Every structure is written in C-alpha cells, then in structure tokens.
C-alpha cells in the first residue's frame, strides 16, 4: 500500500485534466473573456449540463455502486433548486422593493419592506403574506444550509422508512417514484408556499450583481459548476475506492451475505441515499440559477428516469461513465429538441426530431441495456483490452441490482 490514491486511480487525473481543458476552452471561446464564438445561452447550456453530470455522479453512486435504482433523485435536485431560488427571489425582490420605497416621504420600516416583498412574490397566487417556510429566505448562509438540510432530512426520513422495512429492487424504485410524484403534486398547490405551478422565476438575476452582464455571469456559473463537478468527482472517487466502495458493491451483489459479515446493510443504504440526495441538491442549486426558472414540473418522475437512462447509457458502476452519459445524452437531447436537428423527409412522412427524439432515446436505452450493458464506458474497456468474464450468463450475485456478466471485468 505504498502507492498513492491518484496513482492507483489514473482515470481521476485524466478526468480532471479533460474537465479543466474543457473549462479553459469554453472560457477562451466565450464572449466575455475570449473570441465570442459561443453564445451566452450555449454557455448556460454547458453550465447546466455540468450540473446534470454532477447529479448523474450521485445516481451512479446509488445505482451503479450500491445497486439501489432510485427514481427520485431529481426530486432532491429540484428541491436544492427551490431552496436557492427562495433566497435569489427574496433578495432580488428586496432590492426592487427597497428602491421603490426609497421615493416615499417617510423611510420604510422593516415590516413594510417584508410586506412589499411578500406582495411582489405572492401576488400571482393571491396571497400577501410570506409563508413560514420563507423564514430563512432573507439570509444567504441560512438558505444555503437549507439547500443541504431539506433534501438531506427528507432523504434520511424516507430512506429510513423504506430501508428499515427492507424494501428492495423494483418496489423501492416505485416507492421513490411515488415520493417524487407526491412532492410534485404538493408543490403544484398554491398553498404549498412556493408559488404553486408558477414556481420561482427570475433566478438568473443574482442579487447584488445586477451590474454584471449575463454573459459574464453565465461564465462564472459555468466555472463554479465545473469546479463542483471536479470536487464531486474527486470526493466520490475517494468514497468508492476504499473499503466503503467494497462494501456498497458487495451490497449491490449480495446484501444478505454482507449482513452476515456484520455490516448493517440498512445503515449503509441510508448513508448512500442521503449523501447522494445532498449531492443532487447541490447540483440543483447550481443548475436553477442558470436555468432562471423552477416549477413543480421539474419534479416530474420522468426527470429522475432520464437520470437513470443517462447513467445506463454512459455505463453504470464507473463514475466517468455517468458523466459521459449525462453530458452526451443531455446535449444531444437539447440539440434534437431545440429544432436544430434536420428533419428527415421520407416522402410519405417527415420525421420531425422534436417529436421523435424520445422514441430514439427509448430505443437507444433498450439497445444499450440488451446489447451493451457497459454503455459508452465499455468503449474504454475495449480500448484497454479489458474483457468481461465468461460466466455462462451467470450474474455476479443473487440480488436484483447485481452486476451482470457483461458489465463485469475479468
């Protein structure tokens, strides 16, 4: 054990190198600091993609490594977005209200300012008082704490209930999906205190930085997203490299055996579920200021299913696979659905990719699952000459989430 952590995991260095080159390249091609080749909206798309990659990393830890197919992690992602959105909206509205009240003959009291903010924010849903859940929204540090605490506590409670009853496999997936749907339906209500189906908007305007143009701001967010992805990658590589990684992979393949080794399987699952929920929430908190708007539709179960599809296409059980899958599929998706992909005229029918992209994605998902379970990551194995073991079709463990023969390496 004389070799260092990085020398044992050369893929980390390669990943960080590629990520920093990409960041430098985008900076160089940007409007603000470079030759203005990339538009501001495209830089925002790239920044958002990096956040999605971070969420995919979390998904890979829980599904690829621990074998828990959670279909609710985008709910934590969106919750993180809501939490940061509350501060962004509050502080931004506060600036506007204070400026407006400055013209009054009498200086405004603190209560008048709060009432003004509440009226501005909640006018659309016919309310004029700040709900109690906005109690921390005036303070950035407190609301940043909420970004971590709210999804973390929700994941802790939900996970504790689910894992304690030993719900596994497809039943757990359904349960997580139900949680997402319930949360979305709750947020759609006006009296949930988060503006119902209007959601939170204007999040791209960062309070205190109104002088900074959006093209510059978008690049700053891009940098922070790239930094977060790099740190997340390093952290998760460290988590999966040691004994902890061994134990969660063992849980994926044969959890009963892990119990007889003396490890509390439920405790580990809960730990992984909560930590990945927090990572997803942080990714969401970086994503939504770039998206500018968040509403309950973001919590739709389909979003979490996409997350699983990205990880599957990239290759589960390897961190770079999740990042590649998320980046590749989400960028391709925005190309196809953005109307930029040329339609194919078959004479009798024109394939319009905006409509047909989902079909293509679905087909790709099915094909990857059936014929190339290692996904895009498998190409690296091919290149390195690594092969799957010949196990006559046997999986590597008795559990639902266990690695299949084709996913394993000899």
């Amino acid at each position, binding site marked *: 054990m004389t070799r260092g952590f990085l020398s044992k995991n050369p893929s980390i260095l390669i990943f960080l190198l590629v990520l920093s080159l990409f960041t430098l390249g985008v900076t160089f091609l940007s409007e603000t600091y470079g030759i203005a080749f990339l538009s501001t909206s495209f830089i925002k798309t790239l920044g958002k993609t990096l956040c999605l990659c971070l969420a995919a990393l979390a998904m890979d830890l829980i599904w690829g490594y621990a074998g828990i197919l959670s279909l609710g992690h985008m709910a934590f992602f969106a919750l993180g977005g809501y939490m940061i959105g509350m501060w962004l909206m509050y502080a931004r509205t506060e600036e506007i209200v204070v400026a407006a009240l400055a013209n009054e003959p009498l200086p405004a009291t603190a209560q008048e300012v709060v009432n003004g903010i509440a009226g501005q924010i909640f006018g659309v849903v016919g309310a004029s008082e700040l709900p109690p859940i906005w109690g921390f929204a005036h303070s950035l540090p407190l609301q940043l704490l909420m970004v971590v605490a709210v999804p973390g506590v929700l994941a802790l409670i939900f996970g504790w209930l689910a894992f304690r009853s030993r719900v596994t496999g497809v039943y757990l997936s359904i349960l997580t999906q139900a949680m997402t749907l319930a949360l979305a339906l709750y947020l759609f209500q006006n009296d949930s205190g988060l503006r119902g189906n209007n959601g939170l908007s204007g999040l791209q305007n960062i309070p205190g930085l109104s002088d900074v143009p959006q093209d510059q701001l978008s690049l700053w967010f891009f940098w922070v997203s790239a930094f977060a992805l790099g740190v997340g990658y390093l952290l998760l590589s460290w988590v999966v490299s040691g004994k902890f990684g061994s134990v969660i992979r063992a849980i994926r393949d044969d959890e009963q055996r892990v119990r007889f*080794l003396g490890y509390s399987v439920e405790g580990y699952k809960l730990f992984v579920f909560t930590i990945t929920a927090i990572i997803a929430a942080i990714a969401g908190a970086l994503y939504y200021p770039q998206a500018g708007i968040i509403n309950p539709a973001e919590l739709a179960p389909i979003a979490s299913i996409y997350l699983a599809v990205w990880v599957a296409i990239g290759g589960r059980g390897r961190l770079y696979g999740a990042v590649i899958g998320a980046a590749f599929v989400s960028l391709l998706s925005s190309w196809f659905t953005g109307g930029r992909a040329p339609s194919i005229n078959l004479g009798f029918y024109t394939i319009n990719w905006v409509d047909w992209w989902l079909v293509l994605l679905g087909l790709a998902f099915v094909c990857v699952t059936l014929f190339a379970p290692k996904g895009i990551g498998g190409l690296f194995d091919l290149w390195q000459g690594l092969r799957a073991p010949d196990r006559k079709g046997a999986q590597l463990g008795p559990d639902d989430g266990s690695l299949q023969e084709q996913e394993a390496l000899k």
Partner: protein
Amino acid sequence: MSALLEVSGVSVTFDGFRAINNLSFSIGPAELRAIIGPNGAGKTTFMDIVTGKTRPDQGAVLWGDRAISLLSLSEAQIARAGIGRKFQRPTVFEDQSVTENLIMALKANRGPFAVLGWRPRAADMDRVAALANEVGLADALPRKAGELSHGQKQWLEIGMLLAQEPKLLLVDEPAAGMTLAEREHTTRLLVDLARTRAVVVVEHDMEFVRRLNCKVTVLHEGSVLAEGSLDHVTQNPDVIDVYLGRG
C-alpha cells in the same frame, strides 16, 4: 463450564409445517460439534435462527457470559457479537478481488463512517497475506473472486470467516465439492480452530464427521434425537431407525 450458546425450547413453524420443534442445544466456548440429520431435519433452519435470519415462534437463544438474547438482535449485530457463518454454496463477492473480500471480513469497526475513513495499514495487509496463506490463496490475492474454482471459493469463504475472528463458527457442509486432500486440510483446520473457539459443523458425510472425532448431535424432525460420540449415537436404535438404517 458455562455455555457460549444456549438454545432452549425453540420452535418455528412455516405455514403450518413445524421446521423446529422444541429444540434445545448448547455449546461451550472451545468445542467442536457436528450436527447430522436427514434432509428436512431442521439443520439449516437451526443455523438461520442462531444467525438471526429466521425468528423463532417461541424459545430462547442466549449468547455469551452475559447471556444476551440473540432474538432481539439483527443479523449484522449477531455477526458483530461473534457468530460467523459459512454457507453450503460458497458465497463470496465475485466482482471483487480476493484481497478486497478479505479486507471486508477483517475484524474492524463496521459503522459507515469508520469504514469510509478506513485505510489499510501494514498490519492489516500482513494479516490478509497470512490469511490467504493459510487457505492456500496467497498467489490469488489480486484475482477476482469470481474467477476462482469452486474449491478455492470455499477456501476464500473460510478465510473470510477466520478474518472475522468469530467466537462461534457455524459451518454448513464444508466438505461438499472438495477433493480428498482438501477434506483433510479442512478437517485439520476445523479441529485446530475448535481449540480456541466453538465450531458447529453441519454435515451429511459420515466419513467426514468421523474424522472430526467430536461430539455429535442428531437432529430429526426439528428436535434433538440423540447426542454423544459418533459411535454412541450410531448405536442408538432411534437413530438407526430414522437416519442410518435407511441409508
């Protein structure tokens, strides 16, 4: 001598079928014991109860000097208390190397936070190497466990059990699928282990049980039919009637 494990009056019913019927059993801290019995006698269910996989309908299972009830503990807590189990079919983590398998089994704090920060020290790696040597897998340390032969997997699992340093070892048919030389090695190992801890061996193979040369418990229809030396129980008319006589 106080018993290490004391099972008294335990019964289990599965859908009306009485798998274990008022079973009582006890074993001392350094004892080798063989359990024999025909199929369906409740041997595996007995091990399931002791390791916490199955909850009995009634009865008590007490453990150690302080007579802790195992019935209120989870499987993982029972394993941490010092009960190790070897399954009939070798169950190792096939996607992981022999080293990783052994490191996971090494006696250490099992909490998630402790495991997260755990990094192997020289002493741990020496222990892994010594264990691998003991079970004849010294050359196979970097290999994936899934690549090993059936016999090697059995050995790896025994190595993992040793790494856990249990006070009581439950071994289900250790000799299944082993060559004669491997059986002899296994016999020696089990007898050796029983000097410092309790070992319970469930076995079909009478020849293997004879080699163990220890006290034998015969199970039949979920309860103890006879107990004593192998010669003693094989002369018991009930035992001959239900088990040996049919052979």
